[in-house]
């Protein structure tokens, strides 16, 4: 390992403040949801949630701002840089596992639970309880159409989703170009490629929004539409949230580039966001294949 080069940051008030903010958010969200489900208005919960979220936002700005300052002041050694990389890498792995839970749920209901309910396979006796139910995927006809009215139709993968696939794949390419440009210290090119990536991200989210509107308004494909709608929305929904977050991160990186941060040697912040973006892209490919196409 390198010689004695290690930076232990000073005491910091960000962590404890961030914990308080997280608590307020969680508590507020809990109160809000409970109030909404009990149809009792949720004013207080909403306020707590917003305060918590605002606080957390401010803290993150402050915290990252602090880190960026330290980084700009050259306080981080190569070793520190590696720590950050390990950190980001494992964080992305944890995100992969988060999505894995939902993909797992999707595969389980498709290959086991729904066929059983429809009378197929080792536990087909279940069909006794749901006379007339037939297993299909996508599941347009749910076992109990009164409680969970299935969708009339599903999203056609070869329109908006295909377009979105093209958008995200392209954005992965553009962010790689930006990275290449950064390594060559070609600052003009970085700005352009990054901007292109950001725009692609925004357009993707916009199309996703359109698709949701269509699902809800025209297809009857909702969260309440049985297991197809449930898996569809949880997977695409969390993915959408990640794209949005990734876009934010890209914007910040872009602003930092504009301010002259990063050079061909040191640009961990940039790479972290690029990794994240690729991860979001790969998840989408999985979604496109298993949620939309097959």
């Amino acid at each position: 390992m390198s010689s004695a080069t290690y930076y232990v940051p000073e005491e910091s008030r960000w962590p404890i403040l961030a914990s308080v903010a997280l608590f307020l958010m969680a508590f507020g969200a809990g109160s809000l949801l409970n109030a909404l489900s009990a149809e009792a208005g949720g004013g207080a919960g909403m306020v707590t949630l917003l305060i918590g979220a605002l606080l957390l936002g401010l803290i993150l700005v402050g915290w990252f701002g602090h880190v960026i300052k330290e980084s700009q002041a050259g306080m981080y050694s190569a070793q520190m840089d590696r720590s950050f990389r390990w950190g980001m890498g494992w964080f992305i792995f944890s995100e992969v596992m988060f999505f894995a839970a939902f993909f797992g749920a999707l595969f389980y209901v498709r290959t086991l639970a729904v066929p059983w309910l429809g009378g197929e396979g080792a536990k087909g006796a279940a069909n006794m309880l749901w006379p007339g139910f037939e297993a299909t995927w996508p599941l347009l006809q749910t076992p109990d159409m009164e409680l969970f009215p299935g969708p009339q139709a599903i999203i056609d993968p070869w329109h908006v989703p295909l377009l979105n696939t093209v958008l995200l794949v392209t954005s992965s390419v553009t962010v790689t170009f930006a990275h290449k440009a950064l390594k060559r210290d070609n600052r003009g090119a970085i700005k352009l490629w990054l901007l292109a990536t950001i725009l692609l991200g925004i357009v993707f989210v916009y199309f996703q929004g359109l698709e949701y509107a269509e699902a809800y308004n025209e297809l009857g494909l909702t969260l309440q539409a049985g297991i197809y709608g449930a898996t569809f929305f949880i997977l695409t929904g969390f993915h959408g949230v990640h794209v949005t977050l990734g876009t934010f991160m890209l914007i910040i990186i872009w602003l930092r580039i504009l301010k002259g941060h990063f050079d061909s040697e040191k640009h961990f912040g940039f790479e972290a966001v690029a990794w994240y973006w690729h991860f979001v892209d790969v998840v989408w490919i999985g979604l496109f294949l298993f949620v939309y196409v097959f």
Partner: protein
Amino acid sequence: MRCNRLALLLSGFVISPAVVAEWEVNLVRGVTEISHAIFDLHMIIFYVCVAIAVVVFGVMLWSIIYHRKSRGAKAHHFHEHLWVEILWTIIPFGILVAMAVPASQTLIQMYDKSEADINIQVTGYQWKWRYQYLGQDIDFFSNLSTPQDQINNEATKGENYLLEVDQPVVIPVGKKVRFLITANDVIHSWWVPALAVKQDAIPGFINEAWTVVDEPGIYRGQCAELCGRDHGFMPVVVDARSEEDYLQWVASQTQAQQAEKAAAEQTWTMEALISKGEEVYKTSCLACHQANGQGIPGAFPGLVNTPLMSGDGLMEHARIVVHGRTGTAMQAFGEQLSDVDLAAVITYERNAWGNDGGMITPQQIKQLKAE
């Protein structure tokens, strides 16, 4: 008695299993082929574990006694030995393979899906079991029959405390009985140790289990999956009878169903309904809405002096009880109770705890069910 057992326990755990069995510290051997197979497997693994334990702990004890510094032991300096390490990987593996073979055989036997002589659908409800004999007109609920005052330590506890029901499920010996197990609300688990049948009851799905009981007798078990408040109070009682007695029971059941229908046609007075209703309330409703009708705030609503209990609320009240409220713990009691019982319990609620809400007749209930 108690002291004896304590002494036995404390005198060390090296008691021979024969003695142990008497003190009910071992698995029951049960009364089916499968339960015997399981019991034997259990004992085999147990002995294997004991044998390994003796060797492993023996060596350890030896070291503890002889290789201690206070005895002047000097540390040797070995810290690797390839062959030993390979051996103690392979030997346990071999033991495991040897255990896996009979275990798999028994498991495959348990999954024998051949046709059964009798099919009974078993449905778990919070906190009772329903038995429907498929292809026969038999359908009843089986509730805990231990009185509340025994549970509250106000009366001496009976022999079968918590393991007794008002109506056990009756099956013939020597016949293959298939249980189609499901649940109406949350997950329960239908378990009778002597039959070695434990199968989770999953709402919306059906699990199959089967048994062939060798000896007539009463076999008791309990719900084995946490299912809410009264999980500890939903026993399973199986009454295995000879073929003859079983057929007799089937006949008497059919008669009972007819008697019930007749009762529903009869005219009932309010007093008669109220006194009958009190009994029904105790078995079916008290668990949630409580003896004083106040319920449990936040979980189960009170039934005292609410708009529902006033004159106008009558039909709505009856509708809730008959059809339940979907998605809540309030089940549709229409399928669980007879028209008379329903009329009785509703009338009782409307006139208990200071309520004054009139009465409803079994005939009205019948109409409501038909709606």
